């Protein structure tokens, strides 16, 4: 394991620790102990990362935001991964009209920029819960995984173990499920891990635009939205969620790289 990969593991553990233990140790993220005198306080021993414009503790909001981000990312990547693998394996492994149609469906989905689909869906749905947002992000994130899995399945289809299975008389469904599908899972896992970075950024982006989940929820995006109004007097409001975002996305990117060198050493 290289230093970069170790760093990825360390950063990922940091975010998970913040998400799992943070909310237990930091108290209520919505408490407004002193809305008059306790607002926009600089970092101190009482409030390690200061307070926001409503006197709420920034560290507590950051920890709860980490929990929401990870929840949303987990749902999104499970959804995107399952749909992506299903479409990709069918498009790459099944011959004939069915495979061809699935393949074109992937191409059409890839032609739509994700952010545009996301905004259209959010505009139609209005305010949604974090779980629903996770599903929406998953349903807009599968095409890139499907493309990767399709390429992998097309390559595997020509391998000797697949030819052998076909020659032995295995039915097409069995060939796909037992001979092609398992080989596509490692690269799909790598892509899903790398995709976590995109999901975390998009979730924060929607929060920053004040859409998607309720702006009252302590998400990193809504914290950044609030920080924008107080850049002059309270820059730590921007730094805390900004650094958290970098740590989370860098963790996912480095972890994905590490997984790739372990699971799929041949690919770039």
């Amino acid at each position: 394991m290289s230093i970069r990969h170790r760093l990825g593991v360390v950063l990922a553990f940091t975010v998970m620790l913040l998400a799992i233990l943070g909310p237990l140790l930091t108290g209520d993220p919505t408490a407004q102990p002193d809305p008059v005198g306790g607002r926009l306080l600089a970092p101190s021993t009482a409030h390690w990362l200061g307070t926001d414009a409503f006197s709420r503790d920034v560290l507590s909001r950051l920890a709860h935001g980490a929990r929401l981000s990870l929840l949303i990312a987990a749902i999104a990547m499970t959804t995107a991964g399952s749909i992506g693998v299903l479409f990709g394996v069918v498009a790459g492994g099944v011959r004939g009209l069915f495979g061809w149609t699935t393949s074109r469906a992937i191409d059409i989905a890839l032609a739509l920029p994700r952010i545009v689909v996301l905004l259209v869906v959010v505009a139609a749905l209005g305010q949604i819960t974090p779980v629903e947002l996770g599903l929406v992000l998953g349903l807009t994130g599968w095409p890139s995984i499907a493309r990767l899995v399709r390429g992998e399945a097309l390559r595997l289809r020509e391998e000797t173990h697949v030819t052998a299975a076909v020659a032995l008389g295995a039915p097409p469904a069995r060939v796909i499920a037992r001979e092609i599908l398992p080989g596509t899972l490692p690269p799909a896992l790598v892509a899903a891990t790398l995709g976590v970075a995109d999901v975390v950024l998009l979730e924060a982006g929607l929060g920053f635009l004040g859409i998607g989940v309720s702006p009252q929820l302590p998400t990193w995006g809504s914290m950044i939205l609030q920080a924008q109004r107080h850049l002059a007097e309270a820059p730590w409001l921007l730094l805390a969620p900004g650094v958290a975002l970098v740590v989370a996305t860098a963790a996912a990117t480095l972890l994905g790289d590490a997984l790739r060198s372990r699971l799929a050493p041949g690919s770039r």
Partner: protein
Amino acid sequence: MSHWAVRRTAEAVALTILGAVLLVALVHLLPGDPLNAIIGERALDPATKALLREQWGVDHPLPVVLGDFMVGITRGDLGISYGEQRPVATLLAERLGPTLLLGSLTLLITFTVGMALGLWSALRPRSRRAQLLGTLTLITYTLPSFVIGLVLVWVFAVSWQWLPSAGLDDPLLPIDATGGAVLLDRIRHLILPLATMVLATIAVPIRQQRSAALATVAAPWVMAARARGVSPWRIAWQHVWRPAVTPVITLLGLWLPLLVSGAVFVEYVFAWPGVGALIAEATGTRDIPVVIGAGVLLVAAVQLGSLIADLLYRVATPGTVES
């Protein structure tokens, strides 16, 4: 070649139309009553509500909605904005100029500077400065564009007060200001959004150009050129860069969606009156005709860009076999 170009163009048009159909269908099939977006917080009696439903056609079945939309598009009619009560096409036309200005400058700077930096770091991959560049690109790659934008605002607009933080021009500029003063003001307003867009998107061409050039640096013809004493500049330009340019052209098509999402967030941060800020604002107010109209425009832009990238790729690699 021309046969292929026609087919590729038809494909881009078909994908744009299919994309438009999908966006319209998506909104129609998802739960959520657009009437709430039209009337907002107002309490209306059922009769008025029924009238509004009819007037805005929110209960029409999907085939009718799709048919209307497609017929409308051919006449340049994208519907009426719920919030502004004005044609969506007019709103888009007003917003197109600023987006094209910001987007084309970003494209120009990101690709020229990105390719130059990528080539430079491939020529001396082990040097301190090249490794520092690698770390910096990883950081800008993981930073969301709106955080980059806000950090620049904090430093250059709030702390040092060198540059304006929002808008296209200064509302306090005298009406009789000279052309030069207006231009200078526009440039001052452009610097921060442009810098943000470039920082948010430049990592990809740098990395791509670097890895492509790293492959050609090791090529035997480069060693041969060095051996016969060709100048380093000429080697960098002719022997390393020229064969390593095609992967970057292919990248253009993949990079455009990045430009689109950059436009949405960066325009929003800087209150830059473009299409990206329009779709973000319209999503917030659930102004669905505007969201769809701007969305279709962005889909078309991405398709056009990837079409141009494919055509350029063909020109750059004349030997490519028809696939």
